[in-house]
């Protein structure tokens, strides 16, 4: 075995990929020009956030009145005239306006698209084509173009031509995730025994991630062949791809996966339990890990019990319930910090996974996430002090970064039209007069 001299791995890699040093390094995608035409689309804005974090020059092209998504966010708080969701995903983009409903607007778009690497849109399927600026037309003008279309049901297939407004909740439901998430049917007074959505816009984030993934795959293909292509993404299918064995189960013997609350079909213990200071998650489902858990709980009897002695018997629904009660009778006597301390002190063999269910405010109070660079407090010249979640990748050569939080509608119109089309202030004033920008 070869051994490393020099610093320990953790020290070396922190030095090499700490995002606090990102600005000193190059960017992975800084040769890309992206036109983001998407409106009212979480997947669209998330996709271009990812690209912009990784260095792409993203032109967010809004209608003169702005993307209606600028108003999105919690009902009890907006900031600087913007909804908070828009501020969260406005990062690094250049904001210009253009009216595609005007002929001159479409001509200007065409001029930009001729030199763009990527176009992203979220109009009703066929709308861009009807305007004469869909992929069919643009690919003749710019065969290298990668064109990403985001919609509720996609651009082909029996339901494609039926118009449907995409929204994250309906996409989560269509994905199949909602049906298998939540508490089973019950008579509880809260009426909580129904299919339940994820709180955040998960379908939009999945759709945005897949769109960015696919277009970067297409970019590699273009590098090899010089040819672009069209990519069709729906947020519902994006989330659907994460549904593990749900469909295979149905294929094998007609099973329809149902909701099981905080139990688990495949592994146990792997569940939420009450602790003295709230709720926590605990897991130890393989034999060595289950033995470790029983050791920590000082319950050597449990692994001997035939109901809990193997991976397969532990996942029988009745046994899951009984085992969960046993664990909870222990955990309810202790705080989450006490349990975590015991878990970390256990010498092994086996590993118990444990953590408290934390509120956003508690998450923000943990030093770990700040040290890792997961959050940053920006003092933005336009929007003032804002706390944002940061890019997810730590990369040694091309770390992602955030330059600015967001900008108002049309903020960069003058700069971008001058830079790419040579349109000066007088011409822009004319276009403004005509309602084009």
């Amino acid at each position, binding site marked *: 075995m070869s051994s490393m001299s020099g610093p320990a791995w953790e020290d070396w890699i922190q030095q090499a990929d700490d995002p606090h040093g990102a600005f000193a390094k190059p960017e992975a995608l800084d040769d890309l020009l992206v036109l983001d035409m998407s409106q009212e689309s979480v997947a669209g804005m998330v996709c271009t956030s990812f690209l912009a974090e990784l260095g792409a020059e993203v032109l967010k092209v809004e209608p003169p009145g702005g993307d209606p998504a600028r108003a999105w966010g919690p009902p009890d708080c907006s900031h600087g005239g913007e909804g908070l969701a828009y501020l969260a995903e406005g990062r690094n983009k250049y904001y210009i306006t253009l009216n595609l409903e005007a002929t001159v607007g479409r001509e200007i778009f065409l001029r930009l698209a001729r030199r763009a690497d990527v176009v992203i849109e979220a109009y009703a399927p066929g709308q861009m084509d009807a305007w004469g600026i869909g992929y069919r037309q643009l690919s003749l003008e710019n065969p290298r173009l990668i064109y990403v279309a985001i919609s509720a049901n996609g651009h082909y297939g029996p339901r494609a031509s039926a118009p449907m407004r995409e929204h994250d909740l309906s996409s989560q439901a269509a994905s199949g995730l909602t049906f298998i998430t939540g508490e089973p049917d019950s008579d509880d007074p809260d009426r909580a025994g129904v299919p339940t*959505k994820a709180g955040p816009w998960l379908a939009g984030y999945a759709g945005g991630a897949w769109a960015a993934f696919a277009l970067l795959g297409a970019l590699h293909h273009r590098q090899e062949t010089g040819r672009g292509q*069209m990519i069709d993404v729906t947020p519902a299918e994006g989330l659907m791809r994460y549904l593990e064995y749900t469909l295979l189960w149905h294929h094998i013997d007609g099973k329809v996966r149902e909701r099981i609350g*905080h139990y688990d079909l495949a592994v146990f213990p792997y569940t939420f339990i009450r602790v003295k200071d709230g709720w926590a998650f605990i897991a130890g489902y393989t034999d060595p890990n289950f033995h470790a858990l029983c050791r920590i709980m000082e319950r050597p009897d449990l692994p001997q019990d035939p109901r809990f002695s193997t991976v397969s018997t532990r996942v029988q629904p009745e046994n899951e319930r009984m085992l969960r009660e046993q664990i909870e009778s222990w955990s309810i006597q202790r705080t989450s910090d006490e349990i975590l301390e015991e878990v970390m002190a256990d010498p092994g063999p086996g590993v118990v996974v444990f953590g408290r269910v934390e509120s956003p405010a508690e998450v923000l109070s943990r030093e770990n996430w700040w040290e890792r660079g997961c959050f940053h407090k920006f003092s933005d010249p336009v929007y003032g002090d804002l706390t944002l979640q940061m890019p997810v990748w730590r990369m040694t050569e091309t770390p992602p970064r955030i330059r600015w939080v967001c900008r108002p509608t049309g903020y960069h119109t003058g700069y971008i039209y001058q830079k790419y089309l040579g349109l000066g202030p007088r011409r822009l004033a004319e276009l403004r007069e005509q309602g084009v920008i």
Partner: protein
Amino acid sequence: MSESYFDWTARLFDRARIFEKPEALRGIRVLDMSLIIFGPATADYLGELGAEVIRVEMPRTGDVMRIVAPQGIYWKNVSPAFFAQNHSKYHVAIDVHRPEGQALIKQLAAKSDVLIENFRAGTLERKWGIGYRQLREINPRLIYVANTGFGQWGPFVKRASYDALAQAVSGFTAVSGFPGRPPLKMGIYIGDYFGACLSALGVLAALHYRDRTGRGQFLEVAQCEALLRAMDWTWVYAGLTGKNRPRTGNRDPSACPSGIYACQDGFLALVAGSDKAFEGLCRAMGRGDLLTDPRFCTQADRAKEGHAEALDQCIGEWTQKMTRAEAVGLAQAHGFSASAVATARDHYEDPHLRARGSVWEMEDPVYGTMVEHGPAPKLSDTPARYKWAAKPVGFHNEYVLGRLLGLRPEQLKALEQQGVIGKWADRRGPKPPDGWDGEGIIG
């Protein structure tokens, strides 16, 4: 353009022609050294775009997911949960605890473009001498991906993680589900699959940089951090107000009305947040009176306490009288959003998802006909695809080690006798289906 748009897209994306078309990541080799879901899914996503994925497992037992069987039920001697993150891979079994095994990994890494692992931080370097710092000496073009719960460094680096733990500590759990109820566990391992998706995205960004410069790099994604990233306005809100985002059940707080309602044949998700969509909904319900009701004039009015609940009741009474399909038809006609809360059966029987390959049927030489959810993004010129299903432990040893590393049959035999490489143990999980006739082995 005489051809209609949808005739043209039907041709452009024709499911029947997928295998006639090239693959975006042809020629990219991925060495998948990972376990369970987070790592294997990252490799799987690259594989569906055409990367050649070599999946390394321990001889005899293989990955633990082979025995993580939902309700303890196996299918053809393996857990049905093993397949979703292991398509079209070449399965080799190498014992990385042995120096000879480590030497084989180094040889494979020298010929690979991407390496994916999800062990605890530093394990490959400290225990086996095949970490990033060793492998980049052999192959400076290598893109080395390390997936973990909490990252390669930082105060939580020593903590172990699973998907639902990531949901808990990221705050994702606290902002999902109904107020006052126990924590809601997502029905799937979302931190794994979404984290893997971001990891694969990062690889392709690194690949683009390598295409331009020839330089590889190290890249890490942490499961907990992937979920933090996906929580939209939660953090901006907490930062500005000092308040926690509340749990709102099935209502999207930024769109009112929105929720999940019962129909005659199942559940329906419905959203009509904008004024225009709300107008459409009222028309569809035949309730023009609601439009002039001062409680419901604007989205802000509708979202007020009591108002939202009153609207929910109207909508629920209305949906009760119809099927999900009828409600979806009305949503299309009147410009609001609706979808059936789809079940596995709904997907299985949906001709739309079948035509799009989102419900993917294939015939595997070992496991026969399989139906799974297919690749998500649809690429016109380089469509994503599954070629075959996961295979028993060590299934492709001869193909990979012989073809790729040039080992002769007697060398393979010697390595197998020493226990450096191996095949499946004769037990459920690692082994092939009963009565398997040798079909699918690559000579």
